[in-house]
């Protein structure tokens, strides 16, 4: 399946891009993050991140669908 990834803050720096489309056999965010962490050298453990799919927060075990927009959100620092 294909997923569209958006990256923010230090994940964007690590990935070297703000977005990309990836082909993957991962069927949930947990497996997809593990794959991307290996490829891009992400150092955050999953329990420090939140995940959003198609613009809404969701959980790590949600089933992904083809063309989903997936975002792994590092700890926020607004304000």
């Amino acid at each position, binding site marked *: 399946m294909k997923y569209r990834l958006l990256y923010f*803050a230090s994940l964007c720096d690590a990935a070297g891009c703000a977005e990309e489309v990836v082909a993957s056999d991962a069927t949930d965010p947990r497996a997809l993050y593990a794959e991307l962490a290996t490829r891009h050298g992400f150092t955050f453990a999953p329990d420090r991140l939140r995940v959003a799919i198609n613009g809404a927060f969701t959980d790590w075990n949600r089933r992904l669908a083809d063309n989903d927009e997936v975002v792994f959100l590092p700890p*926020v620092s*607004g304000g």
Partner: protein
Amino acid sequence: MFSISEASIDVARLRRELESAGTGAAVCFEGRVRDNNDGRAVDGLSYQAYVELAEAEGRRIVDEARGKFAVEHVVCVHRIGDLVLGDVAVWAGVSAAHRTAAFDACRYVIDQVKARVPIWKREHYVEGASEWLHPEAR
């Protein structure tokens, strides 16, 4: 009302959004860019947001504040982009019939925005380096 803004925050305009005849109290919080953090000299900040989700989550926080406290108007705007010392990074304002609800709701909004809304801050240090802040949960 919650929004993410690329333009500098017009505090006077936002304050007017708090006005109505039944409000005897207005409380606002201005978060400004300061010149130091954790012992390092700072000369500017850059903010990045996942705008679609930040605005949705910010609106949820405003709605929560309206449900929890006896308030009339709740307004919050957060900047993105490059900011210099003294710039307003976030503005939260609440009006209510009485001051207790206004103070409590304003505090609620800014605390929740800082904890939950997908916005990230990059500090630029006087010595030249810069880095994203990813604080541990408080």
